[in-house]
């Protein structure tokens, strides 16, 4: 706690020091490696505008998240006393984090989101793994058309379908149940993951399957034992992005579920942590940041894989 207080109180100074230190070390390392020559200095000079552009973009991207981070730890007095949003005038506190987890339905939202996400991922994989393989390898012309149809379905926005979907959900007796989301979310996760998986399957050399066929496997076995294991990295990244798609979805979640305890994160946080005109700012901002960081890390980790799948799916589609 003392360490946290110290970091937060000196946040901007620490940020600047860290940045200067990183840049300095990097330059020092280059000079150590290539020598303090004129060419080296001119290289560093020529390169610096590039880094400045990167920094400017990074600043725009990250500014609300920095504010979220700082404000999570502000006392009410510090937050609402104008004007001083960037530094701590009063001792930082974790009481709002405490309140978020203990006095609100935040943990319920997290649980619901995980239940919905995992169930949707399983349904999506069961449906889209074979379908994507069929599109990549088995079907010719009509398969291609089916693929384009799927792509067009993915482009239908939920705002077009939520009203009839809502009626269907009510008729099925699924209103206010996460089950409604589990049934409906595959309508956009399946086309998305089919498209991605198709790219990964195309990257598997066909010779390997043919060898398996010659060895006496049938098509299904060749798919299960040769293609699936070889595309595992792609399948894992499809799982990650499918899960986050369900985490992002807002409209269906808002329309289908009115019961607070059954809501998912994306709907629950902005609708339930605001009571009328009263915004619980610190818990709100904390709730958003706590989800943003792990999802951001997952995206970054699997981005190369996504780009690869997208390239194969789109360029050779």
């Amino acid at each position, binding site marked *: 706690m003392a360490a946290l207080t110290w970091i937060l109180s000196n946040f901007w100074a620490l940020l600047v020091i860290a940045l200067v230190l990183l840049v300095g070390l990097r330059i020092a390392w280059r000079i150590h490696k290539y020598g303090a020559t004129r060419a080296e200095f001119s290289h560093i000079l020529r390169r610096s505008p*590039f880094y400045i*552009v*990167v920094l400017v*973009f*990074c600043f725009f*991207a*990250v*500014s*609300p998240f920095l*504010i*979220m981070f700082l404000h999570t730890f502000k006392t009410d007095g510090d937050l*609402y006393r*104008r004007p*001083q*949003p*960037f530094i701590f005038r009063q001792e930082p506190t974790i009481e709002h984090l405490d309140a978020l987890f203990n006095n609100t339905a935040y943990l319920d939202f997290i649980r619901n989101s995980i239940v919905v996400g995992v169930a949707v991922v399983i349904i999506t994989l*069961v*449906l889209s793994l074979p*379908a994507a393989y*069929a599109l990549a390898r088995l*079907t010719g012309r009509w398969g291609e058309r089916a693929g384009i149809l*799927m792509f067009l*379905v993915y*482009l239908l*926005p939920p*705002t*077009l*379908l*939520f*009203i*009839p*979907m*809502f*009626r*269907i959900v009510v008729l099925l007796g699924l209103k206010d149940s996460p089950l409604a989301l589990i049934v*409906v979310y595959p*309508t956009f996760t*399946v086309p998305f993951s089919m498209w991605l998986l198709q790219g990964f399957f195309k990257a598997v050399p066909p010779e390997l399957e043919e060898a398996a066929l010659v060895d*006496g*496997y*049938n*098509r*299904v076995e060749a798919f299960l034992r040769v293609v699936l294991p070889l595309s595992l990295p792609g399948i894992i990244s499809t799982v990650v992005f499918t899960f986050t798609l369900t985490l992002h979805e*807002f*409209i269906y979640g*808002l329309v289908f579920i009115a019961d607070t305890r059954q809501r998912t994160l*994306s709907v629950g*946080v902005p609708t339930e942590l605001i009571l009328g005109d009263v915004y619980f700012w610190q818990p709100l*901002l904390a709730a*958003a940041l706590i*989800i*943003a960081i792990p*999802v*951001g*890390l997952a995206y*970054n980790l699997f*981005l190369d894989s*996504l780009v690869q799948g*997208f390239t194969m799916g789109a*360029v050779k589609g």
Partner: protein
Amino acid sequence: MASLALPSFPLDNRRVVGILFLAPALIYILLLVGFPFLLAIAFGFSDVTVGNTDLSFVGLRNFEAVWENDIFRQVFATTIRFTLISQVFILLFANILAIIFTQEFTGKWFARFIFILPWATPVSLAMIGWLWMLDTKYSPIDYLLLQTGFLGPGGHLSNDRNLFWLASPDLAQISVIFVQVWRMTPLATVILMAGLSSIPTDILDQAEVDGSRFMRTLLMIKLPLILPIMVIALLFSMITMFGDMTVVYVLTRGGPVDYTRVLGLYSFQVGIEGGNLAQGAAISLFAFPLLLAMAIFMLRAASRAEVR
């Protein structure tokens, strides 16, 4: 080789297996997208409300009522305006960023993490951050402007201590567009990165051998080659944005007055909050021909631009 004993012949047939593999996904999608879609059209031609659930046919009445409604026309125009204006900035920034992130540089991993955050964060949660950034009283942006003399008594922008980002018509629209650009640029960037990394390296090597400099390679080789992908990126972000209601739902609820109300939000407000399912469905159906035209036009353009 236990499988040889099974009647494995059908499973060896490409066609049969292909149909078997594709069918479950196709049926699921056709049932759960196709049926609601037809229902949406049926709703549009009926007088269904939350209270009255029988579908009696009323012809084009809903569509006429919607089309003659001044609010709808304004909403429709706002949606198109927001979508088009934001695309200009998204494409511009995405091109710059895609070029940056397909190069190697120090700190790339961390920079990429930061720049991806706006896209990775669930939209509604990211909007909470912006709701605070643009707050009427406590906006940190206003604070910075106040400190630098742009706001406050004698300020360059206003004598007030605040700009009232989400409460003044012009600034609210600018804010919504800015936030949309902020959150959708990474998606377009990733799609463009896919395009840039799919350019065969021998073309680039040859250009280097021929003495082509960075800008020349970029303008004469890379950009023309990724044009089809750029069209796809545009298609994705236009359609995402056209159908989005989350941003305005959290930030402004369409206000002040109607200045930031977009089609999706309006259809939600009429259909769900107002309980008039038929008109809500009719409102969102107006988006469909436009979306379809956009998709077909862009896919055509993309395949025509294909260099191969």
